[in-house]
């Protein structure tokens, strides 16, 4: 879709204002969806320059899509924001250290599975050797902003190997009948810090008679690049994944990170100027499913074991707002006998993680984190969600707030229940 088609849909009703986290915090319409759309329109039409008065609000947007959920007119604010970021990046190439950082992370590190393995190894060494302790004791971390220190302290322990390297290419379920084949997307950060969740996802799929295929050539989805406005790089990565996953022939492409799932469902947006590529991207995106979505779609077995837990559920923005997935995870969680689910206030308000927003915009991210932590029902022992970024963010908030609450991925609870039934047998 062209830019004009996107912004002309807005009728300026303002129904988006009160769901926008940055508007809630600042009260400024420049930091609201309606305001951003108005600014972007003005910039595209040339009534104001594409300068910081547009770029700051556009880059301050969390891209949480809460506005899209309520918009009666159907403005695709997220897509518009991402496209304008693309224009800005094109017109104002980054220079100096910022360019180095951008290229290093978004062009060199994340797209390269090999480099990610190196990061993995280094982090594991850092955590397991005395190095982390020494650094903590030396006070060197004080050089980092408090906010990043808090994140560092909650980084999960990196396991020995990534799911991508451990899982075999094709795993058959125990049962003779199969409900279909899922190609598992293992992700970049996910497989460094949360490879256990990938393993759990595979186990839960197998337990529900799905054949699990793990395409070995897959790479990072490119969501961070899209969010940062680096659409060229994102296109390269999307093309690669589209080929790899379509070749696998799987019925579904299964994702357990909300941000990746949303980005992969939106791959066609990256190719709107090339019909052939867009067609292929559409074939691909039609198959993409969140793990909770595919389980409810093909039907899942109710775990036979009990799991006594009082839990609450946080809606990751890119599940609830970008993919409209709200009931599926709750249905799965409620299917576990013994689970009591307490709904939290404004469960679908962004926690401030928002990809790398918590690194680029630490002040706003911290304000939103504090609000999220304040909303957690104090009776809950566990808070479940479907996105690794949110997990780190909320874990850091829980620790900073001195609360005792476990942070888990939805499939981890399900996996635990299924494992208990095996143990009980």
């Amino acid at each position: 879709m062209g830019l004009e088609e996107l912004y002309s849909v807005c009728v300026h009703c303002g129904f988006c204002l009160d769901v926008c986290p940055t508007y809630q915090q600042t009260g400024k319409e420049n930091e609201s969806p309606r305001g951003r759309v108005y600014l972007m329109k003005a910039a595209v039409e040339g009534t104001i320059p594409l300068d910081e008065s547009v770029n700051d609000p556009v880059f301050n947007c969390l891209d949480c899509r809460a506005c899209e959920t309520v918009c009666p007119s159907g403005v695709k604010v997220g897509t518009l924001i991402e496209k304008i970021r693309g224009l800005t990046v094109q017109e104002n190439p980054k220079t100096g250290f910022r360019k180095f950082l951008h290229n290093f992370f978004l062009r060199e590190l994340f797209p390269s599975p090999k480099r990610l393995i190196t990061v993995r190894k280094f982090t594991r060494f850092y955590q397991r050797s005395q190095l982390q302790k020494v650094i903590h004791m030396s006070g060197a971390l004080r050089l980092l902003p408090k906010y990043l220190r808090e994140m560092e302290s909650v980084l999960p322990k990196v396991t020995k190997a990534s799911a991508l390297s451990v899982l075999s290419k094709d795993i058959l379920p125990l049962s003779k009948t199969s409900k279909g084949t899922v190609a598992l997307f293992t992700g970049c950060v996910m497989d460094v810090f949360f490879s256990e969740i990938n393993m759990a996802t595979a186990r839960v799929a197998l337990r529900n008679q799905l054949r699990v295929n793990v395409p070995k050539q897959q790479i990072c989805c490119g969501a961070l690049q899209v969010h940062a406005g680096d659409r060229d790089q994102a296109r390269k990565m999307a093309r690669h994944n589209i080929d790899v996953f379509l070749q696998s022939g799987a019925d579904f492409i299964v994702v357990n990170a909300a941000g990746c799932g949303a980005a992969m469902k939106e791959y066609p947006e990256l190719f709107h100027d090339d019909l052939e590529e867009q067609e292929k991207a559409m074939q691909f995106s039609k198959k993409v499913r969140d793990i909770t979505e595919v389980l409810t779609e093909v039907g899942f077995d109710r775990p036979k074991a009990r799991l006594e837990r009082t839990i609450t559920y946080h809606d990751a923005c890119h599940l609830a707002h970008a993919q409209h997935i709200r009931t599926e995870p709750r249905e799965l969680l409620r299917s576990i006998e013994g689970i009591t689910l307490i709904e939290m206030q404004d469960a679908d308000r962004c926690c401030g993680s928002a990809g790398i927003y918590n690194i680029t915009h630490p002040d706003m991210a911290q304000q939103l984190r504090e609000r999220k932590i304040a909303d957690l029902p104090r009776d809950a022992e566990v808070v479940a969600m479907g996105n690794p970024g949110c997990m780190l963010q909320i874990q850091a908030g829980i620790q900073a707030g001195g609360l005792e609450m476990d942070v888990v991925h939805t499939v981890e609870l399900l996996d635990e229940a299924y494992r208990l039934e095996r143990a009980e047998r």
Partner: protein
Amino acid sequence: MKHAELIHELIAIFGADRVLHKHNELVVYECDGYVAQSGRPRAVVFPETTEEVARVVQLLHREKIPFLPRGAGTGLSGGATAMNEEVIISLVRMNKMLDVDFENMRAVVQPGHVNLQLTKQIAKRNFYYAPDPSSQSACTIGGNLAENAGGSHCLKYGVTTNHIVAAKVVLPTGRVVDFGAEFGDAVGYDLLGLLIGSEGTLGIATEITVRILKKPQAVKTILAMFDRVADASETVSRIIGEGIIPAAMEMMDQLAMQAVDKSNYHVGYPLDIEAVLLIEVDGLAAGVRAESEKIVDFCKEHQVRQVKVASSDAERALWWSSRKMAFGAMGRISPDYVVQDGVIPRTKLTEVLQRIREISISSGLRIANVFHAGDGNLHPLICYDASVPFETEKAMKAGSDILKVCVDVGGSITGEHGVGIEKIEDMRYLFSDAELCTQIAIRTIFNPDDLCNSGKLIPKPGRCSEMKHTSSIIKQQLEIFVDKSTKSASHSM
């Protein structure tokens, strides 16, 4: 005072973070929910207390710089648009609930408090705030006060003015006064009544005391789809005629249904029905059941195609969203729209709709209709494309023609959206010069220099000797509402 000096003074009051003044960041504030006209403010400030509002108003009054208050900017008549390079006093950061008293059924909120948030905050105790404009998820109580906002449930419960009992107000001269009474009726002239619906021309409310109500014991919501508009409107008259006052009785026509069915709030209306009625009854469970059964019968007697009672809260919520999101959903079928807000006697509905259809044909513009059928408040939504030359003017003209039809059948030009800039010229059709002058005379008492939201609500009459007379008396009386202390302060500067 030079612009730079003004900005300097504003920053001295609010700090740099709460003042917007750069040319390009003000673009966003050049209109509200009414987009056909726009004007860029000279600055936007974000006070957090009554004192800050008073300080900035005193400054602007002293320097004779125009200003206006703004809430969420969801208004539909341009009431918060800066047509005179005003300083916008945005009240959205004044969004706290200051007090709630369940026993006495009162809450005190700041003007930036979002309407629906008030209901949400008191819902745990089974209370709610009754006026429910369609924009209630975003609009503010302060804005509701300024516009005397209505809403779907105002048929039974009354509009904003029936639910606000007191307000602390910063007058356009900067003086702080209290209007109304928390309990009982205020003695003397009803100044609060004057303030509510004055569209920001008499002052800025900074603390608002509202009535809160206990939720009704039972609610039933009925959706009735009709082949013909005439049948739907006769059903409306029949229900009221039988002595039933539903909490709400709403109608949408075919084009409105089609737009909203394309949105996130899809109900799935049959494509060929002409009108849908959404009727809600509430109260004691036994009465509600009997009333809803009667209503269903009346619908059937008037050739309803299909009528159903909501079977769950989710279904009820969807039907309501479908109605309340209808304005915004116009974006699905048209690049731009203006909504009109005419009021007519209920019994004239079929006739007026026919006249609107004729206006649509002669203007060549599609017009969807959404309305509060129970109280005869029409919202024709005129679709146009601002990028087509002269189409905006055509749409404005069609709107004005519709309002004339409303006045001609014995109605009025606004039910709940206010006059703002949009309908200001239509006021002349409704009022004589003498009547307008009386209104201006009242405004002059509160707003002697016409600095506060100038050019809204009341047009300048052709001749107005009374107005000049009143102004001169007020000048002689040394500005009745000017706080003596601020006056002397300004002299000493």
